[in-house]
């Protein structure tokens, strides 16, 4: 005799994402599933398209991380054409990308996770959201939103458009900085470093308070797994390019590989609970559950190449070890990466090589183009088969959230088991939503339509609903 508890949806669209909990008759959770209903038909619409349109088209998949898709598609086209882009193009692309990462991490920290930090995990979720946070911490929120906006401004200037950038192309970037833009961006970038520095103290204080106030939940989110992220030469973090590094749960670096070898190291598996495939590290004949994203990256790297971020990283590692398995610490990792992105942006805008020749001619010769980037939420791979006429014949993508799904499920199971026995409905919902938020999933890179936002929980035993909870 077992029962299923279904939480549906955790986001704004019904059926868009939900949580299923399978319990035995004593209420113990046997399995937990975070179900992402991926948008369907993606590969189908890319096949037959002209390859040079991929950076624009794929950027439109997602309103949250368009620049990651835009740039990784351009990189995959560079590889398909067998060209090395000019140094200035690489610097400009990376600078655009740092703007995007600043925007994305500030959004995550201040808008999504911020209310958890400011209000803690108890209380009324209807009041503990971004609107409540603005009233409780107006200055902190205002500065956080300013930082987000500056990142977006950098992204928008280089990318040509804010929401869906258009400038990265096969062979480089179709954009030249004017003197006026250059001066303006230098000022804005300097401001990002100052703001990130100013905000990191208060955010860290709030984080440490959250850790201290919730020892039980934190213990339950300590889920060992492998980690995957990207390093450049010297083992330091690079979000735009480098080798993919995999580390096991004990902190041993097991392998490094380039994006075009991903098929040899990452195994995709279809699952019945979601359109999204789960992904495992396939190493020496066995499959390992792993995570990507900020925490994974700071676990796998040996250091960071910018001073403020490196100093904070040393504290992080001294406090939480290597690897740190605790999903809640992801917020701290995000803070460190946000510092890094601001400092790195400042290095890039001041690099004399930024304003040189930035495009080489390209020709599709027929064959594959594979590339990766560290999207804000983790390693993102685009893999295209392009014929000699420049037409897409096949496409495959590995996105961050599908790589994290197996660990999210495990965390939900452990979090729910710690809470289920006698937990009030509202408390259970809040805690499970908190678990999901810690992983900062990008839900299907999808739609956002207004309406149908009620959160529902179904408790079933032998296929029959015995309990139903609905928020709103």
């Amino acid at each position, binding site marked *: 005799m077992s029962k299923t508890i279904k939480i549906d949806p955790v986001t704004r669209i019904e059926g868009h994402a939900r949580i299923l909990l399978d319990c035995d008759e004593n209420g113990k959770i046997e399995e937990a599933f975070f179900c992402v209903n991926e948008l369907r038909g993606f590969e189908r619409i890319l096949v037959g398209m002209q390859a040079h349109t991929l950076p624009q088209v794929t950027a439109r998949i997602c309103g949250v991380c368009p620049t990651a898709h835009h740039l990784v598609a351009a990189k995959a086209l560079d590889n398909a054409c067998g060209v090395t882009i000019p140094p200035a193009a690489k610097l400009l692309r990376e600078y655009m990308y740092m703007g995007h990462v600043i925007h994305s991490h500030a959004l995550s920290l201040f808008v999504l996770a911020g209310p958890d930090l400011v209000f803690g995990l108890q209380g009324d979720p209807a009041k503990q959201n971004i609107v409540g946070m*603005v009233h409780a911490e107006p200055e902190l929120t205002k500065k956080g939103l300013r930082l987000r906006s500056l990142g977006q401004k950098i992204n928008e200037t280089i990318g040509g458009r804010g929401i869906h950038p258009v400038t990265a192309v096969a062979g480089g970037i179709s954009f030249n900085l004017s003197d006026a833009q250059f001066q303006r961006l230098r000022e804005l970038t300097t401001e990002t470093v100052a703001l990130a520095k100013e905000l990191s103290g208060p955010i860290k204080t709030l984080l440490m308070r959250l850790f201290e106030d919730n020892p039980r939940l934190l213990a339950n989110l300590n889920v060992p797994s492998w980690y995957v992220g990207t390093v450049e030469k010297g083992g330091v973090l690079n979000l735009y390019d480098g080798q993919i590094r995999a580390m096991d749960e004990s902190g041993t670096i097991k392998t490094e590989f380039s994006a075009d070898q991903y098929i040899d190291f990452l195994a995709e598996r279809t699952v019945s609970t979601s359109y999204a495939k789960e992904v495992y590290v396939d190493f020496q004949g066995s499959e390992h559950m792993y995570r990507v994203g900020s925490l994974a990256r700071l676990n796998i790297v040996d250091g960071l190449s910018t001073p403020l971020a490196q100093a904070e990283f040393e504290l992080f590692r001294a406090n939480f070890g290597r690897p740190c398995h605790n999903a809640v610490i992801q917020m701290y990792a995000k803070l460190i990466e946000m510092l890094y992105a601001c400092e790195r942006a400042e290095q890039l805008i001041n690099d004399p090589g930024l304003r040189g020749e930035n495009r080489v001619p390209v020709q599709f010769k027929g064959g594959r183009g594979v590339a990766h980037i560290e999207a804000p939420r983790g390693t993102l791979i685009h893999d295209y088969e392009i014929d000699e006429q420049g037409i897409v014949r096949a496409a495959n993508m590995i996105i961050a959230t599908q790589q994290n799904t197996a660990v999210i499920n495990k965390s939900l199971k452990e979090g729910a088991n710690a809470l289920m026995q006698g937990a009030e409905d509202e408390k259970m919902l809040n805690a499970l939503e908190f678990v999901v938020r810690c992983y900062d999933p990008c839900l299907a890179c999808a739609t956002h339509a*207004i*309406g149908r936002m009620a959160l529902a929980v179904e408790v079933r035993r032998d296929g029959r609903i015995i309990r139903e909870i609905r928020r709103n």
Partner: protein
Amino acid sequence: MNSAALIVCIGNELVADDGVGWVVYERLKESDLPEGVRLVFLGLGGIDLLEEIDGEEVLVVVDGVQLGAAPGTIHQLGWNQLPDASPRPVSGHGIGIREAISVGRKLYPERVPQEIFLVGVEGKCFNQLGMGLTDEVAQAVPKAVAIVLSLVSGTLP
């Protein structure tokens, strides 16, 4: 950039009826907008909206919605009738217009438009890429465009 009215169309033109905001945007671009009316397109609503508003008299947001009506139904809602997003979103997709405006009222009151409307077109399909609008929604586009134009012109149809 201060103008009398701002029209913000939201949507993802790759995703079936979620593309209705984009289609309305394209139609409005081709039409003669009254003087002082600014038109922008956003992939997502939410916090990005705060960057666009600038103390206009009227803000009209156009978006695909799922409010439970028949597909193609056009909802013309005032600020007080806007539905809430989920109280605690788990991703950036979950932040709505209502939250953004509430944040704006506290942090940047001078930027928040005086009157705010949502023109929401009830959609049918929101998870299929590359198929265009469903017939019901496509047929509602001219009326949605007319409503938007009347709202920014200050005359209701």
